[in-house]
């Protein structure tokens, strides 16, 4: 990728790569033998009156695991429920994995047809697992009203082109989506954030267009929100607190498609990057095991290779090829064991490269010393841990190859855990 240039006195600019010209439509993957839906609720809570192994489901059918409003998945395959398992997700989150084994024939569910009035209730009840994972939760908090919706046409990470594709080829869906979003949420101020070089006539789309720099990390939501709001978001404030809310371009396109076709979409557009760095777009059913994609593309994995969900700067690597495609899986990146960037045990030598590059103006050289020593509170108080955008640039440039980004995520995670424990004990003592 971008290696250090010969002339080192200027800071390197990390550019988002534009989509190659020959890409037009994502290649559809053949129908999988089984899919696994990850539903955000602990496996212990599953209500077996609602769902049981052996149940038959149709494609597009809503599978509720409990009576709670969010605990559902949308079947992306017609067949039989063959397993309901605990699934430990990232950052300690608990999921339930619902596996569907394919039946011979593909039948479509029509429950959504009756509920396809564009209302907030319908959208929240059926679309949360659509490709792009639109979330309608922010609109349910009356004391923190949303006044601006940002449609994110920027890919979150380098090499990814899912959003670029959506902008370039699914503009009609986006346009419809924007129309339905207004109806669903009642918010009139909608901003579409696009890369600078994607600036060609969109015509009247019902949203204002904001062009972003094509330099990483300008596509991170916080930077987009700041540009839209024309001010910095104070640390500790959420987007919700600031009255903004994000939808990815693909999520908006899904909303548009769902309400116009009266059918919930379940084909996810994925940027697939192979070990040689060739990028292609695929369209796969949500829940498809990654193994199926590898098989179709005839990828052979070696010992110690890496599969990364998301892009190279912010993605998560996974330990199993059975991991399914999720509604927010924009990219799958394969990395050869030979290309893996090693981290090291060296201390920070204070070269300052990270400080020069950090978009959040954090003194990373000092911060990292506190994180290494495990002084998370000091790091947060004195060295602006909370300002971090989690872009990963500091780790990317670090001369000592310190896993700074990992330290940062760990520290935030720990601080969050401590804080929630504290509130829990406080509540307990209050009662």
């Amino acid at each position: 990728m971008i290696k250090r240039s010969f002339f080192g006195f200027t800071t390197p600019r990390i550019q988002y790569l534009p989509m190659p010209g020959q890409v037009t439509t994502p290649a559809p993957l053949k129908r999988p033998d089984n899919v696994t839906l990850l539903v955000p609720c602990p496996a212990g809570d599953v209500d077996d009156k609602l769902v049981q192994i052996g149940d038959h489901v149709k494609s597009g059918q809503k599978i509720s695991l409990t009576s709670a409003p969010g605990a559902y998945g949308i079947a992306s395959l017609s067949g039989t429920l063959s397993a309901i398992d605990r699934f430990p997700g990232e950052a300690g989150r608990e999921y339930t994995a619902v596996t569907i084994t394919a039946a011979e024939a593909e039948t479509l569910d029509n429950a959504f047809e009756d509920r396809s009035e564009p209302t907030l209730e319908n959208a929240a009840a059926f679309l949360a697992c659509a490709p792009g994972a639109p979330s309608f939760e922010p609109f349910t908090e009356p004391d923190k009203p949303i006044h601006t919706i940002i449609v994110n046409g920027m890919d979150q990470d380098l090499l990814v082109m899912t959003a670029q594709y959506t902008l370039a080829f699914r503009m009609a869906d986006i346009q419809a989506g924007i129309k339905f979003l207004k109806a669903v949420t009642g918010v009139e101020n909608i901003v579409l954030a696009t890369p600078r070089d994607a600036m060609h006539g969109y015509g009247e789309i019902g949203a204002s267009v904001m062009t972003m720099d094509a330099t990483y990390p300008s596509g991170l939501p916080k930077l987009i929100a700041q540009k839209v709001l024309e001010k910095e978001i104070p640390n500790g404030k959420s987007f919700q607190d600031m009255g903004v809310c994000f939808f990815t371009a693909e999520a908006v396109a899904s909303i548009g498609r769902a309400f116009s076709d009266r059918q919930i979409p379940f084909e996810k557009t994925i940027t697939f990057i192979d070990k040689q760095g060739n990028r292609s777009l695929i369209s796969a059913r949500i829940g498809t095991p990654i193994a199926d994609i590898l098989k179709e593309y005839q990828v052979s994995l070696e010992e110690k290779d890496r599969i990364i969900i998301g892009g190279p700067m912010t993605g998560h690597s996974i330990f199993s090829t059975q991991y399914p495609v999720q509604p927010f899986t924009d990219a799958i990146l394969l990395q050869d064991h030979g290309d893996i960037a090693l981290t090291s045990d060296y201390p920070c030598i204070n070269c300052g490269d990270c400080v020069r590059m950090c978009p959040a103006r954090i003194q990373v050289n000092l911060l990292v010393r506190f994180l290494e020593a495990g002084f998370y509170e000091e790091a947060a108080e004195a060295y602006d841990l909370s300002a971090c955008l989690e872009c990963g640039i500091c780790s990317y440039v670090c001369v000592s190859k310190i896993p700074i980004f990992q330290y940062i995520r760990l520290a935030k995670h720990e601080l969050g855990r401590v804080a929630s424990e504290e509130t829990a004990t406080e509540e307990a003592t209050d009662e």
Partner: protein
Amino acid sequence: MNSQKKLIVSHAPFLHIGSGITERNLHIIYAALPALLLGGLFRFGIPAIGVVCLSVSTAMLWELLMNRAMKRPVSVGDGNAALIGLLLAMLLPATAPWWLVITGTFVAIVIGKQIFGGIGGNAFNPVALSVAILMVSWKDYFDFNGMLMNYDPDFIMAYPLATLKNFGVSGIEQYSISDFLLGRQSGGIGATFGIGLLLGGAYLIMRGFIRWEISIAYLAGVFVTALLFNLTDPTRYADPFFHIFTGYTLIGAFFLATEDSSSPVNFIPMLIYGAAGGLMTILIRNIGAYIDGTVLAILVINLINPLLDKIRPKAMGKVV
């Protein structure tokens, strides 16, 4: 969820820009070579080669011994010990006796670097620290006039700064800046060849291995302070160019003040840091007790570095 092949699970980012500590140290060593080879070894001959070899080898040896003693991974291979040994040798006279060199590398590696936790932990530049300690103990070796007996060159071999200190400005009229630039002066093994040091410095700045703000601010500090002194009394205080091209000024600006771990990384602190170093250097030379103030001046700015670090830009979204 079993998999046949063992995949690597690690953390983002999954790319790296490709820089590294070993590479960095090697490039600094390359940058030092013109001044060392053409200015030092060529001019001062076999004894200088001896000092350099002894210094580099013993520095690496101390590093290895300390790695072993502290039961840490062996870090000799990263080149930092070699670099420290090399820079130390460049500041020593060619006539330095073997025990002076060994004591010097001991102080630099063990006291200056390893007991602070190795690379990156030192709050003071190990080379400057070592030379300062040697200078306090064995002053005579650092007025470089002890070398007079061993060489018979076609230029003036008396150490310019010592001449300035002892005889004032009238004593230094015999010297010319072009001689200094060509390395036709007395001084540390690698500190005499002005053009070589400028080339090395330019290389380091261009490649981004040092932060140019520090070097430039340091040289500007030297220049302005020397000029002010010179303007108040030209018969007592030498002109700024003399100060820039003699003694340790250039090697200090490019190779000592810029040492990573003991210098600031933000723009304004770097300027203050460099300028304060230049100011102290000239103060010591003009009104202080020592002949050349560079190494002590660098220790002084190392000392204020933690305070300078408190001057920093407001982080994004910081609430005050």
